[in-house]
């Protein structure tokens, strides 16, 4: 069976600039895929290609089995970072308007939005607005959901609730493609795809992406002096409270402490996803 959305060696050039460079990606039914990359890596261009909003310079794009079209886009739900809701309309009016645009007759509003049905969207807290935007985008039971930074700006509990909804859509069979800079969100995905300078460099589960990468953890009586010592050597030190984490070879750090004359406990520990991401992008950009 075909993937819900797929690019095959797709390239997009704007004059001299290659925004997307021979990228192949597929989103299958029931899976949540996180698309990660630094700003300017080509994530937004890739999504616009997948939805058929721009034609590729070369390569092939398949959306629900054929070239993207108005017809296939009807089976997609999209939530931009800016939400795409009408702030001057109520929750109910936004819901009805979108359903009518998709040619659906008055679907009943989900139960959890009942209490706020007559509230103007613009007057609701952002966390609730994001929940409304997701519910509206999912209302026509799209086969593919595309979400851009779905929980940006919301409190942790609202973020958790939205992800409960996103997972429920995937378990009901939809494919979900999420772009995010937030690694808490990335860890919710079944699979991640990381872009650097227009190219797809890594793809796999969050655990695959981290792989066996390690960082050096430094504990010292005086974290401030230890930080200054390592920082002055040009290492990218990250302080977590009074524990320092450095994505570098252990030798360099042992040596710095031997020379600096500060006592510290130095151990190698598994990298977290954020650290792994920074390592992957830095390695690629350096080559």
């Amino acid at each position: 069976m075909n993937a819900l959305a797929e690019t095959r060696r797709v390239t997009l050039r704007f004059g001299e600039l290659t925004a997307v460079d021979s990228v192949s990606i597929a989103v299958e039914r029931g899976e949540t895929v996180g698309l990660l990359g630094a700003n300017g890596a080509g994530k937004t261009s890739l999504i616009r290609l997948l939805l058929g909003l721009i034609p590729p310079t070369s390569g092939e794009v398949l959306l629900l089995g054929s070239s993207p079209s108005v017809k296939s886009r009807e089976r997609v739900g999209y939530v931009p970072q800016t939400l795409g809701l009408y702030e001057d309309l109520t929750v109910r009016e936004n819901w009805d308007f979108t359903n009518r645009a998709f040619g659906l007759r008055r679907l009943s509003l989900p139960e959890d939005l009942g209490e706020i049905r007559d509230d103007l969207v613009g007057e609701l807290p952002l966390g609730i607005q994001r929940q409304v935007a997701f519910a509206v985008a999912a209302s026509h039971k799209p086969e593919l959901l595309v979400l851009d930074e779905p929980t940006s700006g919301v409190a942790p509990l609202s973020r958790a609730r939205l992800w409960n909804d996103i997972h429920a859509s995937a378990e009901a069979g939809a494919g979900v493609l999420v772009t995010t800079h937030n690694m808490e969100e990335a860890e919710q995905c079944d699979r991640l795809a990381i872009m650097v300078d227009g190219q797809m460099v890594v793809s796999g589960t969050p655990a695959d992406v981290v792989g066996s990468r390690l960082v050096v953890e430094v504990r010292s009586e005086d974290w401030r002096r230890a930080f200054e010592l390592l920082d002055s050597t040009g290492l990218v030190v990250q302080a977590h409270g009074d524990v320092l984490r450095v994505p570098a070879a252990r030798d360099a750090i042992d040596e710095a402490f031997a020379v600096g004359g500060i006592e510290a406990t130095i151990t190698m520990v598994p990298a977290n996803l954020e650290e792994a991401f920074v390592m992957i992008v830095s390695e690629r950009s350096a080559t």
Partner: protein
Amino acid sequence: MNWGIESATVRYGSQVALDGLTLQPERGSVTVVIGGDGAGKSTCLKALVGLIPLNGGTACRPSKKEIGYVPATGGVYPDLTVYENLAFSGRSYGIKGSAFEKRRAKVLELIGLRDVRERLAGHLSGGMQRKLAVGLALLHQPQLLVLDEPTTGLDPLSRAELWRVISHTAAQGAAVVLSTTYVNEAQRASLVILLSEGRSIAAGSPSQIIAGVPGKVGRVKSERQPPGLAWRRGGIWHTWDLSKGTPGEADRIEPDFNDAVIIAELSHEIGITR
């Protein structure tokens, strides 16, 4: 006496934006205020630096010359170059001559923008603009540095670079206070204040907040939502059970900081005071 605000209340008309909040940052470490949009984070930081008056409570802060503050948006002049921005900031703090040149070189080095010093600030990437804004606020070597959502919208690379500057400033002895909506950023602080509706609903170091979780936290691998309070962590569920009886189908686990923050918000919502 420590700097900070104590039992601070701020009202905008009939709306209570800050409700008896206490926030006392420590020198030489990072304090993070976490909460969603509208929780009162910006109000809290503005009250801390004295940009808005308190309707109740007390504040103690260093002199204006010892405070650096970066608002959530802006903080740089887009039509001036990086150099001109620094010069303008230097003049407004009365730093002149060789003292200014020394600080300018130091700050440019710290924020890593030396190669783009002649570029208009408005032409820099979002991450570089944020770093410049922080650099401008650091020029006069403040003892209290306050940053309103400095990393929102930044990619992890820019975020790591900005945190290097933040940790460096704390390591030098300043009290750094910043707001965020990211749990993993709050986890990097020595002191965390979780804000909701203008009130502190959890406060302490990340490990203290984890240790304060009431009830039992469990994990379940299931497609259906387990009964009670539960949230997704990728393919599994984490559950929270306040009852004293035998645990349900969930395997009991130690909560992590993410769980602890969610549970603090849930407790607040269902009216459990801690």
